[in-house]
């Protein structure tokens, strides 16, 4: 593939996931030039502008990155190459599964029939076959969940490189709008990926317009106040409904007018109507925003529906079947946790199988697989519901909620070490599920609370008397936990 063309389906690999891929030797086969480190993240509230920034530099680790972006294709190619070099692994391509049947009586093994006439009798059938998993259906495992009223629009964006006065293009941006978050994910100095989740009706309209119009919209959506974005959405929808084509110039004019009425200076980074990509001293606030998009790579605009779903069990009733990844759970992409949760599933499953083998167990038996479910189901449930709640929290425009979430975000932003704990929980730490040093994580939390007194002022939410009591109490708790963790 051309070095400057990028596929539209990308993933963010946390440090934990990268370490896992390195441990199994697959990372060597992933083309490094087509991966991009994320060293910082800027996340802000679309209504209040409350902002939190995460930086890998805050992590008490050697690594300078929080995660690594790569195209799914690049990762898949690397994994396939790695597999093809393992003699025990037999890869079958250009073959479909035509049927999965149960052999004979109650506890029969699954029979997997292929389009090339082969049939496999499987001691253990791993369902890694995506959200509509046929393996899951065969096993009769039910799922719970719901479809969101949103789709995600993806595209590969081109933009000018960051200037020497700015940090490199290794910052991910995400703005939470009531219609859904829009994310900017760097892939190279001049290419980045976009994931824009928004209302279903709007998605169809966005996909139908001219690419230059879409560019204008994307730039505005990262910058304009929410009220104006809502207006632009309505403008687009009504033009589609009335079949009266909107021209790019009309939209630019509209945006320019709105910027003026919002008092956005033409030299500010928040101004998007001016020609993009000028080289020179960048505006002061440029680090808060992604670079201005100049074009969209042809053929990369696509969309997919978003669903929350979680399988009620990961193991088939009589054993022999186990689910991992999207077959077991799907999640809103706003936190970039879907693939990482899947990789963690695989890591734990591999370890579970290894343990069973060392003890002479039957790796397809329910008993052998139970530790996998125990380690992963609740863990995934936590991630899934946290992401789901986050999505719902930011879908509202109800002022008290907006105020509360904004204060919360700003408070967390001031508590550096709490942020670190958040990043580690999100998998940025690099310790992996094997990490034994949970003690230092609590150290981090305790240290963060030492700053509680000084930083709580910024939030202006807690009375000063209470601050002392709560702060000291929490700090003691944190210290106690770190003691326990060290043992």
């Amino acid at each position, binding site marked *: 593939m051309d070095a400057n063309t990028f596929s539209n389906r990308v993933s963010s690999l946390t440090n934990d996931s990268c370490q896992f891929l390195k441990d199994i030797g697959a990372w060597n086969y992933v083309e490094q030039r087509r991966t991009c480190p994320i060293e910082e993240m800027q996340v802000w509230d679309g209504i209040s502008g409350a902002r939190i920034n995460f930086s890998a530099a805050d992590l008490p680790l050697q690594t300078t990155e929080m995660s690594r972006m790569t195209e799914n294709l690049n990762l898949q190619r690397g994994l396939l190459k790695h597999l093809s070099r393992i003699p025990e692994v037999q890869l079958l391509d250009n073959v479909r599964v035509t049927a999965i049947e149960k052999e004979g009586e109650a506890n029969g*093994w699954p029979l997997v029939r292929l389009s090339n006439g082969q049939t496999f009798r499987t001691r253990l059938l791993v369902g890694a076959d995506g959200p509509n998993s046929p393996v899951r259906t065969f096993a009769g495992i039910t799922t719970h969940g719901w479809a969101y009223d949103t789709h995600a629009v993806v595209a590969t964006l081109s933009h000018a490189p960051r200037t020497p006065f700015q940090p490199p293009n290794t910052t991910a941006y995400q703005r939470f709008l009531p219609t859904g978050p829009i994310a900017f994910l760097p892939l190279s100095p001049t290419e980045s990926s976009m994931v824009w989740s928004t209302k279903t009706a709007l998605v169809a309209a966005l996909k139908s317009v001219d690419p230059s119009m879409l560019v204008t919209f994307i730039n505005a959506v990262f910058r304009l106040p929410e009220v104006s974005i809502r207006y632009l959405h309505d403008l687009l929808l009504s033009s589609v409904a009335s079949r009266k084509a909107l021209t790019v110039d009309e939209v630019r004019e509209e945006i320019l007018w709105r910027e003026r009425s919002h008092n956005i200076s033409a030299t500010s980074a928040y101004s998007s109507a001016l020609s993009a990509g000028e080289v020179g001293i960048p505006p002061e606030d440029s680090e808060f925003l992604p670079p201005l998009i100049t074009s969209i790579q042809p053929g990369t605009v696509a969309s997919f529906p978003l669903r929350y779903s979680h399988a009620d069990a990961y193991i088939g009733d009589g054993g022999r079947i186990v689910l991992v990844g999207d077959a077991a759970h799907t999640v809103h992409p706003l936190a970039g946790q879907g693939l990482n949760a899947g990789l963690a599933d695989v890591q734990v499953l591999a370890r579970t199988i290894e*343990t069973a083998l060392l003890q*002479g*167990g039957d790796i397809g038996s329910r*008993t*052998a697989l139970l530790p996998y479910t125990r380690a992963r189901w609740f863990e995934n449930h936590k991630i899934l519901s946290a992401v789901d709640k986050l999505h719902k929290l930011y879908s509202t425009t109800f002022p008290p909620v907006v105020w509360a979430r904004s204060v919360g975000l700003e408070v967390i932003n001031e508590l550096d070490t709490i942020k670190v704990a958040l990043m580690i929980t999100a998998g940025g730490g690099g310790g992996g599920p094997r990490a034994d040093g949970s003690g230092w994580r609590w150290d981090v939390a305790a240290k963060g609370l030492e700053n509680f007194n000084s930083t709580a002022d910024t939030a202006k939410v807690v009375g000063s008397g209470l601050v002392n009591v709560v702060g000291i109490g929490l700090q003691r708790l944190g210290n106690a936990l770190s003691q326990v963790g060290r043992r």
Partner: protein
Amino acid sequence: MALREVIVSNAAAVRKRPMFPLCGRGIANNVNTVDASEIELFSRLSSQWWDEHGEFAMLHKMNPVRMEFIKQKLQEVQWEEGTCSASSSATPLEGLDILDVGCGGGLLSESLARLGARTTGIDASEANIGIASTHAVRDPQFARSAKSLKYLHTTAEALLAEGKQYDVVCSMEVIEHVNTPSEFLHICAQLVKPGGHLFLSTISRTPVAYALTILAVENVLGIVTPGTHTYSKYIKPSELLSFFQEYPTRFASKTGEHGRPWITRLYNGLPSRKEADVRGLIYVPWDGRWTLTGRSSTSIDFDLSTLCNYIFWVRKPNGSV
């Protein structure tokens, strides 16, 4: 919980079951141990052996822990004697002849065979042997090399009469179901090659064990068929230890064997690490699995970890017959 070694039914022995199983010294000339009723019970339950949700769910979960202990002990001895074989870590039991007495549905036998041991599972219940064989045949791992795993509907006595001996003899959850445990141990002991190993797992005779294995599991929760366990047949670890302190001398009149006792002496109530070991098996409900407790540092009489289920290992001295 599991099987039942039968050896010629002896009605008198059933009736006069000693209150403390291993204290009875007198052993009738015609060997015996069993309980026909026990065999009948387990034959009735045999179809459930491989149902991981059913009656034997707890046993399925216990299996990995028992395997872990067996592997550990065998490796420990190998390291100590510098006979660490070059066998791969996938099949650490390669080259060993192992007998599983009272194999039931074959839970332990299959695992032993997977780790490379030439395994023989025997059971007094024909139904159990039928279930175990059928289950193994469906697994291609065993179908390919029939040598690695075979099941026989026979008794330990019969094998002994044939003059068979094994590197390792295991009898898991069996001794609490036999009529004359001392005789049963004597038979198992003779089936072990000199320098070989005997593994037993069973339940201690304590109020805790009664509350958990009979009151809770059978009567209240109904997980296991009532009547599976008989409290008076439970054996304390200390009774096993003292049995092997006197073994084989106590049987000298019968066998003419005056060899070194299997356990020479106890140190603060515990055997030497090279001669025998007792470890508790504890079910952790919130974890859904069994754990193997560490080596006790106090006298076995005061060891809380072996109050209920425990696993026992003893080694036959090299000079024995």
